[in-house]
């Protein structure tokens, strides 16, 4: 039986990659991702993980090497954060468009400038259109489970897409949590060996990455879109099967004390844990407040969102990134778009907060909810408000 033990989340994520029997790890160090790749390098050095560890000279090369490894049929893993993810940006599009499944954990971190090693979701949001599956986790256990699920989802023949697992830098990567690492034999049962349909192989030559003229480019992109949309049902299937084997449930949007809630708060990642405590407090005070935790960011869970907000009057969305000059945080504007055609929809109030590692306390979430309810009643001069800023 798998036992629960105190583990640093980064170490546990590395262990999850090892349990998934990765063949190649290619990574470049960046805070706060470092402990993940250090641990993997150590596992390879000690012979515990049979894999090639490629200590590349940049994140651009890290992702490029992942593509090369995936193209020959290797199960591939990498991790990065912030500037690293941005340096990979153009390569990310190639990994998804050329249909290379791989798993990358992103230790969510703010983007420069000013340089900040601390957490927010600017990096994750900047790559939302790259065609990857993006899953946000809120604690170490979820990170471990979703690394394993990520391989299973991405490698499914109906999907064949790369998967990003987003875990907040420091708030998750550097904390020690009680984590249950699944047994290897159970993981082996859950995750079959990777068989890429047409790898680069002299026995059966293929041309990959051909020039796409106007007569075919649109069709390629459309095919990619359809597949990413389909990835949602496969993700649900995989999570269900994971639940059956390991007893832990995952869903695209998780609800916390939403029964009868007139006001809903929506968060992503590790801050959801504090938000839950805030909801408990407000419920205790007799307020009809519930929490939505958005886990699956790409493909976006439209139906699930419409279903869970249909009885609410107010939906307060917390973004941890700014879409500069735009209508608010990227998550909030997406949610507004998703609900626009609904006959009955809540008032949607956007907040931006928790930038560059700025904590939001339990009282802070309470403040956000109260201010959100007030804006819903009286309106605001702004498209969105930024929480806790000194003006």
């Amino acid at each position, binding site marked *: 039986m798998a036992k629960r033990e105190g583990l640093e989340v980064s170490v546990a994520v590395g262990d999850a990659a090892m349990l998934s029997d990765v063949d*190649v790890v290619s990574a470049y160090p960046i805070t706060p991702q470092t402990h993940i790749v250090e641990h993997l390098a150590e596992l390879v050095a000690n012979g515990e993980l049979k894999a090639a560890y490629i*200590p590349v000279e940049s994140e651009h090369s890290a992702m490029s090497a992942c*593509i*090369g490894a*995936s193209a020959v049929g*290797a199960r591939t893993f990498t991790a990065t954060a912030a500037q690293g993810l941005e340096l990979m940006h153009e390569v990310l599009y190639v990994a998804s468009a050329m249909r290379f499944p791989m798993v990358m954990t992103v230790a969510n971190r703010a983007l420069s400038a000013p340089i900040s090693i601390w957490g927010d979701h600017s990096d994750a949001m900047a790559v939302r259109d790259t065609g990857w599956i993006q899953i946000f986790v809120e604690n170490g256990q979820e990170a471990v489970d979703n690394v394993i699920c990520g391989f299973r989802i991405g490698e499914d023949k109906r999907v064949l897409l790369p998967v990003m697992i987003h875990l907040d830098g420091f708030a998750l990567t550097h904390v020690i949590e009680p984590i249950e690492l699944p047994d290897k034999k159970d993981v082996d049962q859950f995750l079959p060996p990777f068989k890429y349909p047409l790898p680069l192989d002299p026995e059966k*030559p293929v041309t990959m990455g*051909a020039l796409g003229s106007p007569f075919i480019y649109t069709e390629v992109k459309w095919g990619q879109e359809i597949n990413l949309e389909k990835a949602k049902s496969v993700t649900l299937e995989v999570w269900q099967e994971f639940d059956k084997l390991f007893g832990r449930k995952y869903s695209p949007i998780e609800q916390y004390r939403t029964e009868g809630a007139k006001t809903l708060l929506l968060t992503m990642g590790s801050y959801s844990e504090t938000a839950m405590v805030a909801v408990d407090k407000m419920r205790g005070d007799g307020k009809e407040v519930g929490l939505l935790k958005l886990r699956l960011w790409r493909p976006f869970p439209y139906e699930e969102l419409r279903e869970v907000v249909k009885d609410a009057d107010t939906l307060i969305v917390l973004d941890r990134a700014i879409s500069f000059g735009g209508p608010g945080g990227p998550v909030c504007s997406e949610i507004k778009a998703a609900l626009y055609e609904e006959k009955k929809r809540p008032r949607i109030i956007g907040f931006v907060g928790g930038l560059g590692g700025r904590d939001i306390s339990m009282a802070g979430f309470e403040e956000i909810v109260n201010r959100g309810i007030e804006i819903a009643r009286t309106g605001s001069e702004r498209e969105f408000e930024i929480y806790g800023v000194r003006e």
Partner: protein
Amino acid sequence: MATAVHGPGVITELEPFAPGHRACSGCGEALAVRLAAKAIGNNAIIVNATGCMEVVASPFPYTSWRIPWIHTLFENAAAVASGAEAGLKALEKKGKRPERNIKVVALAGDGGTSDIGLQALSGALERGHDFVYICLDNEAYMNTGIQRSSATPYGASTTTSPAGKESLGQVTWKKNLPAIAVAHDIPYVATACPSYHRDLMRKVTKAVETPGPAYIHILSVCPTGWRCATDDAIKVGRLAVRTGIFPLYEVTNGQYKMSLSLTKLEPVENYLKTQGRFRHLTEDTIKEIQERVTREYNKLVELAGKPGGETSSE
């Protein structure tokens, strides 16, 4: 097998790079790729950077490649090759693929190598991947319309280093990529030119058979960009070698060896005058180029310890 080249005057009929590609007429680079592919053989994976050879060989749904081939981006051929090589080795070690000694060969132009891809190349060489990197040097960004690169020679007029009243064209000397490769202490570095086809194929074969990283720098005449006659690619390449502008040599485990015995270099002017990109050069500039070429050539000869190795096999 990589040893498919055999016998004097006999060249393998193997054509991993098929005819029917869309290169310009007289393209020296397509010829270089064809010859290199013959020497590489069938048991290989080609990783191609964005550039002329990628565009002309892979307009979907056509392909010129009869062996596995992948193209992703401009600057990352060496990194993709690193991943493919490491992936193959890991899978073979774990028994997930049969051991077949597949060689990974990266192809990139001079821009993809000496400018935008230099970091990825340096990383891959330093890490010691067992692969071959071939730079197809036509001395400018030809695919995008003859813009200068750091491999463009001094004095050449390109669309972004145009000769004009205030400029002689390219004002910097060609970056010495083979020397940079040698500085990585890799087992094999060579220069080649399709005008010396057997020399080129021998070097590619040797690179493929060398364990660890090997780098081959191939001067590829581009009639379109160099503004020379389309039936002159072989002649112009030969002149580049005979004038000492592009010396043929190889460096095996740090040991330099000249590939041809050239008792006397031809004047650089013989080479420069074949091409429109040098048409504007004054006598003074030509003299400056001559001095530099002679000096650099002598340095190489000194490194090699003697003027030539094997006799020329044009």
